[in-house]
């Protein structure tokens, strides 16, 4: 009798968990507000992204064509659904026809961005919960990292961080975050880039960081300098010292970079 109860309980729990998991995925990616009629783009989620147009001139949308990757078919049905939802929301930027608030000029784009952010975080939550590693998740992260909205980038960054490091992701971080103008994202992006120290991407990372400290947004440049310590090592500290010559000596970026180089030297000789 006890055994039967245990088995029944076990079966019930299993069924409940499976049901709960499926409904949660479903709930998370059901979006009633975004009722688009994008027949032109209906294959986008699983095949080619909308912005991979070959035309050189286009209406500059959220995603750059240059670095766009081909979106391959996601490996699991729930991920297919998740990515379909995300791309469907993204298409609202172009269509301008989604049922979203539009009371002031910026509100519509904000709303699209907020929806994307929410969905990306939901996806991230499931990925962390279930400890999922899948190249498709990285691809989704990289794709949405290109959206010109710091909130969306922030969520995409978390998605990329949940997955294995890759050359494509490193490039995406440099192009879409380090060379962007949102200083709030720099700490996270640079933590993520630390995963590439000692890898083949390291030199390019250092070059981009040095460049952005010189010619990037002054706010971003300072944020980079505040997080530069882990990147300075024996093979590149002289190059960073040369970088000082490109900076205004009175800038906080110059002062912090100099402090970090000096600190590296102290660490190297034991203090």
């Amino acid at each position, binding site marked *: 009798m006890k055994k039967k109860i245990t088995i029944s309980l076990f079966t019930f729990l299993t069924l409940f968990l499976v049901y709960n998991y499926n409904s949660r995925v479903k709930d998370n990616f059901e979006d009633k507000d975004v009722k688009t009629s994008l027949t032109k783009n209906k294959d986008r989620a699983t095949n080619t992204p909308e912005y991979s147009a070959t035309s050189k001139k286009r*209406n500059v949308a959220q995603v750059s064509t240059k670095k766009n990757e081909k979106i391959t078919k996601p490996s699991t049905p729930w991920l297919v659904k998740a990515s379909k939802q995300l791309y469907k929301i993204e298409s609202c930027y172009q269509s301008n026809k989604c049922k979203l608030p539009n009371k002031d000029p910026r*509100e519509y784009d904000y709303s699209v961005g907020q929806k994307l952010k929410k969905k990306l975080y939901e996806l991230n939550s499931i990925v962390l919960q279930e400890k999922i590693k899948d190249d498709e998740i990285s691809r989704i992260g990289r794709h949405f990292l290109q959206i*010109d909205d710091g909130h969306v980038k922030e969520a995409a960054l978390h998605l990329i961080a949940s997955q294995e490091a890759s050359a494509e992701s490193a490039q995406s971080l440099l192009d879409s975050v380090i060379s962007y*103008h949102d200083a709030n994202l720099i700490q996270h992006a640079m933590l993520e880039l630390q995963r590439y120290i000692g890898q083949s991407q390291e030199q390019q990372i250092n070059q981009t960081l040095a460049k952005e400290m010189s010619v990037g947004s002054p*706010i971003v440049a300072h944020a980079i300098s505040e997080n530069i310590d*882990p990147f300075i090592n024996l093979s590149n500290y002289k190059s960073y010292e040369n970088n000082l010559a490109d900076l*205004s000596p*009175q800038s906080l970026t110059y002062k912090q970079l100099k402090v970090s180089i000096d600190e590296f030297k102290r660490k190297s000789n034991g*203090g």
Partner: protein
Amino acid sequence: MGKNNKRHYQIHVIYFLLFLPHVVFGFENWWQCSGKTGGEWNFARTPSVCLVDHMQTQSFVKSQYSSLIFNDSSNRTSERNRYMTEFNATTKETVRYYLLRRKPNVSEAEIEAFFYGLQALMHQETYWSHYRQPSDGKVRYMRGDVGHGHGVMQVDDRSHQTVLLKGYGADLVNNLIYGLDVFYSAWEKAPLSSCLKSPTNYKDRIRSAWAAYNGGPSKICRWTSQTGTYAAHDKDFLAKMNAKKWQSYITDQNKKSSIDVACLTEGNRPCAPPSDKTEDVIPAANKLYKNQAGSFCLFKNDHFECIDQLNDVNCLQVSEGQTYSKAYELSDVLEKRYPKIVLDRHKLCLGNIVGLIPVSSFIRLNKTINMRKTPAGELIKAISIDKEFQVLDFEVLTTSGQERYYKIREGSSTGYVYAGDIDSYPHWAQKISALTTGKLIANEDDTIKIIAPSGINLRKLVGGTLLETIPKNTELKVLQTIIQGTKNYLYYKVSYKNKTGYIYSGYINSPGTSHEWTQVVAYNFKQMQLAASIPYRFLSKCASTSCAYSTDAVRSKSLNGSLPDLLIILEVSGLWSLVENIDGSKSGWIKTEELEDVNN
């Protein structure tokens, strides 16, 4: 940036909205707005303005931006002309500095066009309105769009709340730079769009950049449509561009800004007014000089004595018994001709400011005091009377009054509290003997442990001859704590193998490295770290994966380039643990299974 055109007929709409308790996007209208005051739909006085106090102190704005505050009590016409002329000079210098930094080979034609675009943008967004001082004498700053738009560039709090909390709304130059980042991004993308035939078709490029600024990046070609929802905005913008009405208020196109735009753009606060040029061949003994790096120097007999930051000029002036009304430019040539001594701010200020409490000492608050992100900046919270803290830094803001602020940490918040002037300081905070926990910096008789992987050199003097290398994990009794320099470099006097000397222990000020050198041994708690299989993890604000992330990330030993964070478990809830790093600077929730014993 995400705001409507401000035209006369919209007043009614806005006032209608004011009386509705609704929120847009879940964001509160008129967030952090007190003392809201109206205005007029004309340059410099557009409604509405709110007190700067949530973001900056009154005294900071009045001392730093006095020439850029519109004074309501003055004659309206002459004040408008004065303000517009000054605003034009400041924004022109800001654009030039900004563009030359972002694009060193930029042409004069492009700088001119970009500035023209900014002038039209400021007209469209706010009629060039930023700071205003109504009859009560308290400075306010521009808020539009039911309070969501902040400052002359109308940075929207629905999308940019984090940066607004860092002062990018109220602080004029920060507001300009933040807005310019967005405008410049659109400016650079415009030539790639379908609606711009040539990058030098500046008129269309301005229209594209503004359409994206106003409507979002996907609206960069919005101005080409005659019928869209916001086509009227683009037409209105073009009309403003063509009319250039701002020109009629500017009395001197060649005026130089009264503020040091380069210093402020590069993130320094406070900045002295631009230095006066000097023809000195031999430095004068009674002049304060400012060198190219922004340090302030006095010439003493045959050498310069310099300090690195403007606030410390107050300590210098008290020490000299003299107030310097302005600084003179010190050329590299003149500076290099004489030896230079950099004065240590700790010795200088502690030796001259009455009752100033040193960094690493402990204080108890004698009043409930506001904590601000910087002495003059964003209000974080009120700290209750009788709370005790370790002093992490100090700032002296005035010479005659010797007004001082202390930097402290409460929970995961770090900021400054006002601690009185030369007369009132005992009423604000008092020095106490010691704290038992929460020490970032060790003091005499405390025990520290060496954390640096290769150990730390014991030297005869600070930075002197090497005596011994003390290996990792060695525990030592502190004989003396020494703090030096603007970053608060930390040194401990210790004894090891019968040799007494000094060890370096990183610096305290942000981003801080002291935790990578030594650790104060004050806890008996078990220390944990993030499992090596995870490179780093942002802590959660509650015990759930669906909860928002905090801004604190903890690193594991597998992350290259940095040491792992040592963590203490404060509380367990289900599968989650509330953790704090060893110096108390980071805290949040993490799954317990993602933690491992520090000895693993």
